[in-house]
């Protein structure tokens, strides 16, 4: 059984009357890519900041590497890499100097540090930009520099707090590939995001948060099994009579039908050939329709079904 790297028990954090974290419990094992998914304001960053001992909390306990986390737990800090949502680099230092500076806060030995800095540069593919100042870098490169500064000391636990905010798709993919590579090299990852696709793509286990509470936890398949929906069929259609809509809702495994703005959405729970049955009904009724989509449930569906609101609404 894998070693527990992070253990959060009954964590409560209040900002006056607002409860930011409400009895949160998390356990993250070695080698996991653990995703914290939730809309803005759900408590993801607060969890991370409490974890890093930056924020005080009202109740509960946090253990990292088996020891209570505190500001003076330097041994734990030595093994943690942090990549903040806001880029934290010095404008007056070049790329290589920034990485060396932050790496130097963890590693005293010059030759060891030099190697680590070089590895971080290669890992983030910043070789061609080492003498650039941050202001000369594009948004994607800046994010990669931010990551290089956080991982150069080769931490065992890497915490990434929304590292892809305002990043172009190409750079986003590079960052996500990099995170998977870090995990393959042995690092445990905690990844927060409100982009469910990213979390689905890289996380081995996911906790969904809302209003400071953990509302679900598991692998993405486990999370999807928690909900009724197994397939959503969407059809572009100009109009649909009420009796046809009624007929669709009586089909086997269909539990919800909705027509809105020229789009028919039929939700199914289990069963096979749902799409064929739905299209047959439409054809028999001599209705003309456009594009047809059949989608498996997403984490957004999980979030929607549990909370009654869409995760994307908060984007």
């Amino acid at each position, binding site marked *: 059984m894998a070693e527990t790297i992070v253990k959060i028990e009954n964590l409560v954090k209040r*900002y006056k009357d607002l409860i930011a974290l409400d009895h949160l419990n998390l356990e993250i094992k070695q080698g996991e890519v653990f995703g914290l998914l939730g809309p803005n304001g759900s408590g993801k960053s607060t969890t991370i*900041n409490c974890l*890093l*001992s*930056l*924020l*005080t909390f009202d109740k509960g306990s946090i253990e990292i590497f088996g020891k209570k986390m505190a*500001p*003076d737990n*330097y*041994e734990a*800090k*030595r093994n*943690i890499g*942090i990549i*903040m949502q*806001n*880029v*934290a*680099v*010095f404008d*007056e*230092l070049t790329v290589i*100097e920034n990485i060396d*500076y*932050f790496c*130097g*806060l*963890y590693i*005293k030995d010059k030759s060891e540090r030099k190697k680590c800095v070089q590895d971080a540069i290669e890992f983030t593919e910043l070789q061609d930009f080492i003498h650039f100042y941050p202001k000369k870098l594009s948004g994607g490169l800046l994010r990669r520099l931010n990551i290089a*500064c*956080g991982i150069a000391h080769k931490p065992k636990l890497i915490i990434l707090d929304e590292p892809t905010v305002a990043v172009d798709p190409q750079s986003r993919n590079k960052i996500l590939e990099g995170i998977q590579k870090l995990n393959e090299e042995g690092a445990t990852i905690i990844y927060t995001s409100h982009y469910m696709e990213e979390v689905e793509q890289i996380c081995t286990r996911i906790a969904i948060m809302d209003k400071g509470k953990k509302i679900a936890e598991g692998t993405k398949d486990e999370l999807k099994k928690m909900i009724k929906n197994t397939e959503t069929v969407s059809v572009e259609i100009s109009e649909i009579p009420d009796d046809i809509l009624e007929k669709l809702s009586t089909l086997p495994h269909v539990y919800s039908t909705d027509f809105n703005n020229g789009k028919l959405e039929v939700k199914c729970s289990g069963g096979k050939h749902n799409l064929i049955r739905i299209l047959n009904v439409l054809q028999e009724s001599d209705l003309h329709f456009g594009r047809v989509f059949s989608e498996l449930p997403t984490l957004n569906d999980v979030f929607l079904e549990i909370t009654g609101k869409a995760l994307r609404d908060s984007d």
Partner: protein
Amino acid sequence: MFLHNLKYEFLQNIRAKSLILWLILFPIILGTFFKIAFSGIYESTTVFSAVPIAVVEDGDNSVFREVMTTLSEGDDALFETEYTNEDAAMEMLEAKKISGILYVAGEKLSITVTPAEGGPSAESIRQTIIKSFGEQYNAHCNIIADTVANSPEKISDVVSALSEDIKCNENIPLTNGNHDNMLSYYYNLIAMVALLGSDLGLNIAVSSQGNLSAIGARKCCSPTKKLVTIISSMVGCITVQTVCIIIAVSFLAFVLKVDFGSKLHMVYLAGSIGGMLGVSFGFAIGSIGRLGVNAKSAIATAFSLICCFFSGLMAGNMKAIVSTYAPWFNEINPAAVISDSLYCLNFYDDYERFTQKIVTMLIMTVVFTIIGFFLTRRRKYASL
């Protein structure tokens, strides 16, 4: 770790454009502006120069000639004398080449000057000098003539007494320093450079606190102790600030030829300690409250300029006004303390008052640093 942090603190500071602008270029530009604006004001209003006069003699008067020769010799000559005839003298007076004409007829001396225009001026002062000399000369001649006529045996005592009278009017300087009032502007300029170093100290505070900057948060998450990073940053900033002060003072002293007196090395010292005060002041400001770095920087700069205003950077007599209505303020105004230390250095021969000002600066530095440390020592925050 200390040296690592120190190295990068140096690099950041020397590459910061704001530092180059405010701590190096600004004093150079303002100092040059002062030099151009004040050039000649001191010489024309304060420094005494020999009064140009013409002497028109009616016959030979060896005693008068001897007196005039004595008064027209040396570096501190009272008159610049030209012997000529009446017509030439009048022409020179009308052409304003001379300030007055002395007519010597036997033992009697008479004076001609032209009316000075406007209020008190350098010309009216020169005419007053000529008039005073004429009156004193006539009075002395009368005394000597009376003594010769009535008590010739006392003539040597009378001459001796008149000589002593002259000695009583000898100029005895209070100090060997430069008396140029415009120097106070340069003192305040140095004080301003010292206080603008507050921006450096401010950045230390902001970049050390997890609730004020992302860099602060990243530093707080590292295993390096906060005290180590703060002290090394303070050392780095104070060193850079000292270099800026040295550049500013050197530029004023050697390029603009501002005369700081014979204790230039102490000017460097006072400026450098003022720089420490500026950095610690910024460190304290940066540690207070949750405002962003730009807002805090604006507050520190505004505060520095206000201090400099009350110290006399923008209006030379401001410090005297403050001294009249709120003398305590000059004792706690960092800019006033820094400029006062430079003033004491120039004006007083001993170091007593200078030392007092230096001690005041050091106490302020320690107080500001303690405030900064006290407020930045936190490692956990209620909110970020």
